């Protein structure tokens, strides 16, 4: 079934139906097969397992009856993985050699490299993941500049350090804003209106209310955080726009979090697959998109890109965005 909607008016309101169709049972199968093959190959299969997981999650994400697609392969990620591993080994050797001369310098170098590595990995991950994501045959892309982003990141990090961490709220939102605003889907641009000051207030009030409610507010705090993340995301194409907003309530979060805890504890951790899927479904079920961009009228603009360095780097050091 296809809807060909060329005839629709440019500015007419579109309806968007975002869904996640994954099932716990299938996800469990994927996790176990990944596990089996990774163990049998003494870990070498790991990048292929990552690719399988991502392909499942993306493929089960559906907007208006069309599936998203992750086209990254295990082979690409394996190459990235080897690069990261080599880099890591070289770094350890370097640190070891420096530590023989002056231990203090070794520590400084280690921190410096670690800090520099974070923006490097964020950039690489966005670049790779976006280039491997497509929808209706149109690629996503990431237009961020590595050098610019790293320099900005260092500046934000420096401000965070000298303000004893207070600026870290701005850092977090600046990173979100920069990365999101550089995402393209064909000729659609993503927008992000996050602001460190607003975010600081959300986190501060959430913290205070949670303390004064003896922890009960934590579910509403989660709602506020989710709402802040989602409500600031949008898209634009010329004068057409899409706005996202959260429909999740504190009660919904209570149900999600308590349910997840319950599943994990009573399944001795085996229910993790169902928890993942429940959470993913929850997220997509509580994002409402409104606007007038017609996703069947998008043109390919993003060039192909081949480098899986960041993707593995992110994974290797377990950085979550």
């Amino acid at each position, binding site marked *: *079934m*296809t809807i*060909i909607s*060329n005839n629709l008016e440019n500015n007419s309101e579109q309806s968007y139906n975002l869904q996640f*169709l994954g099932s716990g*049972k*299938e996800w*469990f*199968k*994927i*996790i*176990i*097969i*990944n*596990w*089996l*093959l*990774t*163990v049998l190959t*003494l*870990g070498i299969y*790991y990048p*292929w*397992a990552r690719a*399988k*997981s991502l*392909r499942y999650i993306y*493929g*089960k994400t559906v907007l208006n009856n069309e*599936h998203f*697609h992750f*086209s990254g392969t295990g082979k690409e990620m394996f190459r990235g993985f080897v690069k990261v591993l080599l880099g890591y080994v070289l770094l350890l050797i370097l640190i070891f050699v420096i530590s023989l001369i002056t231990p203090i310098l070794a520590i400084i170098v280690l921190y410096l490299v670690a800090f520099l590595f974070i923006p490097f990995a964020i950039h690489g991950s966005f670049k790779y993941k976006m280039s491997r994501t*497509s*929808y*209706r*045959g*149109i*690629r996503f892309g990431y237009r961020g500049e590595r050098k610019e982003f790293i320099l900005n990141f260092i500046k934000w990090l420096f401000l965070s350090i000298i303000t004893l961490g207070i600026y870290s709220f701005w850092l977090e939102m600046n990173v979100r804003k920069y990365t999101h605003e550089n995402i393209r889907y*064909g000729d659609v641009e993503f927008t992000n209106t996050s602001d460190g000051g607003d975010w600081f207030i959300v986190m501060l009030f959430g913290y205070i209310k949670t303390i004064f409610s003896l922890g009960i507010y934590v579910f509403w705090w989660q709602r506020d955080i989710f709402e802040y993340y989602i409500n600031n995301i949008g898209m634009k194409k010329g004068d057409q726009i899409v706005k996202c907003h959260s429909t999740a309530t504190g009660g919904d979060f209570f149900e999600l979090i308590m349910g997840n805890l319950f599943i*994990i504890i009573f399944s*001795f*951790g*085996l229910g*993790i697959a169902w928890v993942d899927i429940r959470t993913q479904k929850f997220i997509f079920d509580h994002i409402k998109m409104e606007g007038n961009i017609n*996703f*069947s*009228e*998008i*043109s*390919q603009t993003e060039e*192909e890109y081949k480098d899986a360095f960041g993707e593995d780097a992110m994974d290797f050091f377990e950085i979550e965005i």
Partner: protein
Amino acid sequence: MKNIKADYFDGITSNSSLSKLSYNKSSNEFFIKNQEGKSFSWKLEDLQFNRFENLIEIRNEKYSNALLKINNASFADDFYNLMKKNNRVDLHSLLFNLSFIKILGIAIFLFSLLGLSYFYIIPPLAEKSIDFLPESFDNQIGNTLINPIVKHLDINKEKTKYINQFVSKLDLGNSKPLNFKVINSNHVNAFAVPNGEIFIFTAILEKMKDYDELSALIGHEVSHINFRHSTKMLSSNIAGYMLISLMFSDINGIMSVMLDNAHQLNSLSFSRKHEKQADEEGLNILIKNNIDPNGMVNLFELLKNEEKEKFTIKGYELIGPEITSSHPLTQERINNIKDIISKSEYKIEKNKKLKEIFKKLKK
């Protein structure tokens, strides 16, 4: 497979067009004809696909963005079988078609394999593997552990001299030089460091009634060093962690906390095993030196009621196998010793020199 309806996305715009798809068996090609009557072909060997029940998405490696979407139950089966026959379905996808129960079986098998190797295969292997590590490795760990602490310890020089005299009269079966130190402290304790340093606290000396108890304490601590317990512990801990991280590299926070705790519990039982071995080997040292093995029993009886809190020196938790604290002296350990003594042959010779030095240590 002939004239199957498909949606075709050309990878240039996001619009789709209705197309017809036919398969040519002899050339292993799919022919696609779109609404405008244009047609082209895709070779089977270039195809990749995703299956969502009755929905098949076909992509071509040569034109990575173009996409054919077919929603047709019988086509989905036929296409899948065709790809399978041509070895275009990878192992992961083949396994994915197994029933949930079979996958659950694999999961249970993997868990048992993990458990088996974690409890029965890894620890002995790890213990054996330290034979390849030179003794200098133990010295290095010992130094790393003790150097930051040693400056906070109040060493009693006089008693340290006596204790080393005392030890020189004993055959401890040690393979590396040992260095005993007496520490002024009101904690009843003693501990051994893998580099051969053994620290005995004045408070424990004060509690002792005779030199056989001191010999028992020395025997116990020396056995920890002789049998390289710290290095074995380290090796088995690392091996255990490696196994866990290999098996659960993709696991989330809660699971990893659960696993960490299980791991710690296990290494605690591992160290209990070492304590038992140190008791037994310490006993052998007493018997070899013709000292009353009941000294070990007496030592444990007098330590039994000691405080069991974990104590620290200037923020450093005590390291190395110790005589009290983390491994309380259970009645079980005492009974074990009594049991061995009753089955052993031994002779006791009064050792005046040891008695003399012991008296000086008690002062």
